[in-house]
Structures are given as C-alpha cells and as structure tokens.
C-alpha cells in the first residue's frame, strides 16, 4: 500500500475512534437527510397542485360559453411553472420569484418578481435545503475534521516521526486529503443515493435521463467545491504554527468566503449594475406603451386617441390588433432590459466566484437544478409567447368575424371552437446540456478554485518539508 493510502487509513481509524466525526458528521447528515425529505415532500405537494391547477385552469378556458372574444382575453388563463425535479436538492430562487403567471389581454404580466440575487443573501439563511447544507455547512465540516490534520501532527511530533521514514510532505498532504475526502464521501454518498430515487421519481418519465445527468452534475459540482475546501483547510493547517491558530484562521475564512463575501458581492453587483425598482419599471413601461400605441393608432387610423370616437366600431378588432402588437416591441425592450440587468448582476457575481467558491457552486447548483434565473426567464418568455398567441388569435377572430358587424361589433359571440384553438400551455425546461452550457463560467471557476487550493496546499507543505 502506498504512503497516502496508509496515511488516509490511519487518519480514518483515528477519526472513527474520536468524537468529531460522529457529532459534526452526524449533525450534517441529519440536516441533509431532513432537508431532502422536506424538499421532496414540498415538491410532491406543489408539483401535484400545479399540475391540477394547470389542468383546471385550461378546462375553465375551454368551458367558456359563447361570448365576445375580448371578454375571454380579459379572463385569460394561468400558467404554472413546473417544479424542477432537482428542486428537492436546490430550490434556488424559485421560492422568491413565484411560479404562477396570469396571461391576459394587453399587458405582459410577471410573477411576483424581485432581483434574483435578493434570494441569495441573508434571505437564504431561512430556507433549509440540501444545497444550503452543503454550501454552508459542508466547508464547516471539512474545517472541523481537518483543521489539525497537519498542525496537530506537527504539535504532537508524529509528523516528524512520519517524515523520518522517508515519506514526503506531498505524500502526507495527499494522504490527509484522501482521508478527508473519504470521510465526506462516507457522509454524503448515502445522502446522494437516498436523493437519487426521489429525484428520478419526481421527474417526468421522459425526463429521467436528464434528471439523472443533472444529479450527476450536481454531485460533481459539490465534490469539486468540497475538494477546494479540503485543500484550503490543509493549506492553512500546514501553514499555521498551532492547531488553535489553524482553527481560528479557518473559521475566519469560512465566515468571509461562505457568509460575508457572497452577500457583499451580491450587494456590490446591484450597486454596480442597478436595476429598476418595480415602481420605476411600471412607470417607464406604461409611458412607453402609451406613446407607442398612440403612435400606432395615429399611423394606422390617423386617430390620436386609442379606442376613441375617431375610429368606428367596424374597425375595433383591427384597432385592438394594432394596439396590442404595437406594445410587443416595447414590452420586449423593457423586460429584456430589466432581465438583462439581473443577468449582468449575476454575471458579475459569477466572476466574484474567483474570490469565493461558494458563489460559484451556488450559481452552478441552481443552474443544474433548473431553479436559477435563466430558467425563470425562459419560463416567463415562453408564457408571454403563449399570451401573445392567445391575444393574436382573438384579435384575428374579431377582425374576421366581429368587425363586419359594424356598430353592432359587440353583439358578436365567438363559438367554443375558438377557445380550443388556443393550445394548452406546455413548458419544457432546458436540457441538462443547455443548463451546463449556461454555467460554464461557474464550472471553470470551481475547477480553478480546486486547482488553486491544491497548488497553495502544495506550496504550504513545501515550506514545512522539515516537519
């Protein structure tokens, strides 16, 4: 057996006979299993509720009596964002941005929306999820198990005894890293295996392979994240002159890297790329919509006031179509600008992953779980496309059937077949490959963090090659 394996085996034996692995590891395991169970229960409930609500709402749409189509457009329909299978592990921003959209005439609506990163700072302290446990408590577990890995052996003199045998510090380092990795695997692999069936059962039958890929990606992401912390802990333990100093430094780094920096950088990114407040957004959108529609009415009908007396009721349907379609570009511009500002904030925060692996793993975790801002934006865009489809179908029907009624325009009643021409809303989340592609920056940063700390740990032990 080679030296790192021997060292790892001995470390594991020593830890198994000590208390740290049991109380800290046990606590983490309990939290992890509890969060997975809670996540599964919550997801099952909301998944069922959303599917039922989606079906009921569409049935309501189809069951409308013969009526003026514009009345139907004002009734509109609701669409519900499907719950991602991996939300069991990482609910991401979903709890903060809502999941229901009311699609109705004239105006793109939004789910109860906040800047995505509002959900990632202090607010996240309140939500227990497996991702939260791994992101915050995973590094703490590594610290508790590993702070004395090298400093403690140096204090006891056993490191000198080991080195006198012709074992290199590099071998000692890798032995310690292996031991820590094995301990983490001992705790996390069973939790992962417990989560796998729940995730696969939560996914649609056709999306199970995709869910499995995402889960494998998440496992790899967290493995990389914890690897970075394993070597960070070993680097500090090698550098510190005492175990007490090592623990103090590591706890300070944990507070800085895991708690403070992510929050600080989220705030900094919002200051750097400010986004409009809800009130500002509504005011600007309303003003631009008013101007655009007025211009469209003027261009089309020579009438300055939309739906004014200057346009006869025989052109009410055509006017409606002009009115709505004039707003599409305006809404696209405003929503894109808003969402782009959130995306830029996220991108900035993503680069901040250079400073803290927690930021990188958080973004990657949400991305792979399908609970991130990109997925939310894709759903909102798909919902708006459905709204416009409904609206355009109704306007076309009015032009075709109601405008011919002249002043009796509003006596027109559409048959039920019209409602059925609006298809049920179906949203397919992006595939695992697309989700990974969107998060390559985070993958690179996590990989970079792991490599960086491996290099630093090697440099730290090289300084201590004399024990």
């Amino acid at each position, binding site marked *: 057996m*080679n030296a790192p394996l*021997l060292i790892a085996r*001995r470390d594991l*034996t020593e830890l198994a006979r000590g208390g740290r692995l049991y109380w800290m590891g046990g606590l983490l395991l309990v939290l992890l299993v509890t969060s997975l169970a809670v996540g599964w229960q919550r997801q099952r409930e909301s998944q069922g509720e959303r599917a039922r609500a989606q079906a009921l709402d569409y049935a309501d749409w189809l069951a409308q009596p013969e009526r003026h189509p514009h009345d139907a457009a004002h009734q509109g329909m609701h669409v519900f964002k499907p719950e991602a299978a991996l939300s069991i592990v990482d609910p991401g921003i979903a709890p903060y941005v809502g999941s229901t959209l009311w699609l109705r005439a004239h105006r793109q609506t939004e789910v109860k929306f906040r800047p995505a990163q509002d959900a990632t700072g202090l607010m996240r302290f309140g939500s227990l999820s497996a991702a939260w446990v791994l992101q915050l408590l995973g590094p703490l577990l590594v610290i508790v198990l590993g702070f004395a890995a090298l400093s403690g052996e140096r204090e006891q*003199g056993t490191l*000198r005894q080991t080195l006198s045998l*012709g074992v290199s510090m590099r071998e000692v380092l890798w032995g310690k890293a292996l031991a820590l990795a094995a301990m983490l695997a001992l705790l996390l692999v069973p939790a992962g295996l417990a989560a796998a069936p729940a995730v696969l059962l939560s996914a649609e039958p056709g999306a199970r392979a995709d869910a499995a890929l995402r889960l494998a990606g998440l496992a790899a992401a967290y493995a990389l994240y914890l690897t970075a912390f394993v070597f960070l802990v070993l680097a500090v333990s090698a550098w510190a002159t005492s175990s007490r100093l090592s623990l103090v430094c590591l706890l300070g780094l944990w507070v800085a890297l895991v708690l403070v920096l992510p929050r600080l950088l989220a705030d900094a990114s919002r200051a750097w790329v400010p986004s409009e407040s809800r009130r500002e957004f509504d005011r600007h959108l309303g003003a631009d919509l008013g101007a655009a529609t007025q211009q469209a009415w003027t261009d089309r009908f020579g009438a300055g006031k939309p739906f004014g007396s200057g346009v006869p009721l025989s052109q009410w349907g055509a006017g409606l179509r002009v009115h709505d379609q004039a707003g599409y570009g305006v809404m696209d511009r405003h929503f894109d600008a808003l969402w782009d500002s959130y995306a830029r904030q996220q991108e900035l925060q993503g680069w901040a992953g250079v400073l803290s692996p927690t930021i990188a793993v958080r973004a990657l975790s949400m991305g792979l779980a399908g609970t991130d801002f990109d997925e939310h934006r894709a759903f909102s865009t798909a919902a708006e496309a459905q709204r416009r489809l409904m609206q355009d179908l109704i306007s076309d029907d009015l032009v075709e059937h109601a405008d011919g009624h002249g002043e009796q325009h509003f006596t027109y009643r559409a048959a039920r077949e019209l409602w059925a021409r609006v298809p049920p809303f179906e949203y397919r989340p992006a595939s695992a490959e697309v989700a990974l592609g969107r998060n390559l920056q985070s993958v690179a940063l996590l990989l970079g963090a792991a490599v960086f700390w491996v290099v630093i740990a090697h440099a730290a032990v090289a300084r201590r090659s*004399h024990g």
Partner: protein
Amino acid sequence: MLMSIAAEKGTAIAPALEAVGVSKSFGAVRALDDVSLGVRPGEIYCLLGANGAGKTTLINLFLGFLEPTSGEVWVDGRRVRQDPLQCKRFVAYIPEQVMLYGVLSGYENLRYFAELGTGERHAREPLLALLQEAGLEPKAADQRVSTYSKGMRQKVGIAIALAKRARALLLDEPTSGLDPSAASEFSALLEKARADGVAILTTTHDLFHAQRSGTRVGIMRRGRLVADLRTSDLGTRDLESLYLEHMSA
C-alpha cells in the same frame, strides 16, 4: 566541491553516515562549526556533549530536517540535501521522545510506521515479536498508546526502527526514560545490529553506555567536535575524565 572522506581517501569501506566540514547557523547562533565525522557499517558512534552542544542538530542534518549552512552531509554515499527522501529511507530514527498516535495501540502504531517505512505489508505475529524484542510486554501491544509510559513508547520506537531493517540508525538519546534493565536490553539490540553491519550514530549523556557499547566516541562542545576516538584506543583511560577534561578546556 566537498568530497566524502571515503572518496577522498579511497577508503575501502565507505561511511554509511558522513559529515564533511559541516557548519550550521541559526541567525547569529552557530550551532555546528566545521564538524566532520563518519560512521561506517558495523560501528556504533556515540556522540557526547552538554545540552546545546549541537548533537541533535547534527542528527537533524542527517535526517534532512535541516540543511547545513556550509559543508555537506552524506548518507549511503548520497548528498542528503540532494536526495533527502532516499537518504531517510536508508536510516531509522529514534528520538529522545518517540511520538506515537495515542488512540492507536502499540501494535497499530508499529504496523502503520513499519508499512510506511518499508512500503510492505507486515503480518501481525512478526510485529508482535519485534515489540517483544524491543522489550514491550505482550499484553501491552494491544493497549492504546495514550496509556503508555514514556519508556513503553520508546520501546515501540525501537520496534519501528527494527521493523524498517535500516542500514543506519540515528538515535537521539534513545534510552532516555528507559529503566536500567530496558536500557541494557536496548544496548544488546544495538550490539546485534552492529554485528549485522548496521552503522549507528547515537547521541547520549550516558558515558558508561558510550564506553561500553560504542566503537567510537565523539565529544562535542559549542558546536565543534573536539574529540573523535575509538573506544578501543581509550585503553584503561576513563571516558568520564576525558569528557570533563574537554568540557572544562
């Protein structure tokens, strides 16, 4: 470039452990000053000197834990500073206080360090035999080391050195903490190793032990090797008086 004494003199049997013109300074403090000595296979070189004379520093140079400020240290014909790992694999080291893992038993500590030092798997029975050879009571082998006395730890350290089957031993006051009977058993073990051709460099304050067990004796004072002689050349002279003579010079 500094040459080993054997290479320079063309001696047939090269020293397994050799220091050539070695000095070591820690800031303004000169711990070793131009020390040259060699320990050939089958020799027990006892290094005497007061605390702070530089004995442990010299051992640390042979182990590659320190690098000389000037001069060169050789193990098995290899420069320690060039190939410290290979040199350490050639030697076994027993410090004044053998440090072991308290939650492991004496046997588990021995198995761990033996496998680490040799890269081979070791069966239980031969290891238990080594512990017994080192003087540890059989019933103590499976007790946690945290319950051991200092002497018992030293015995495990001796067993570790024996298990390594090293061609050179570096011993830093190894009998410190051993009772007289254990120290005597240890001397017998050293003699057996010497007879097997092992080169042994040991620091000690025990003049009686040095005169009885050593084949050579070196006396260090303030970082300098002030005497280097064969014990057989001492004749009827008393080592104690020679030692005191050098110390008071």
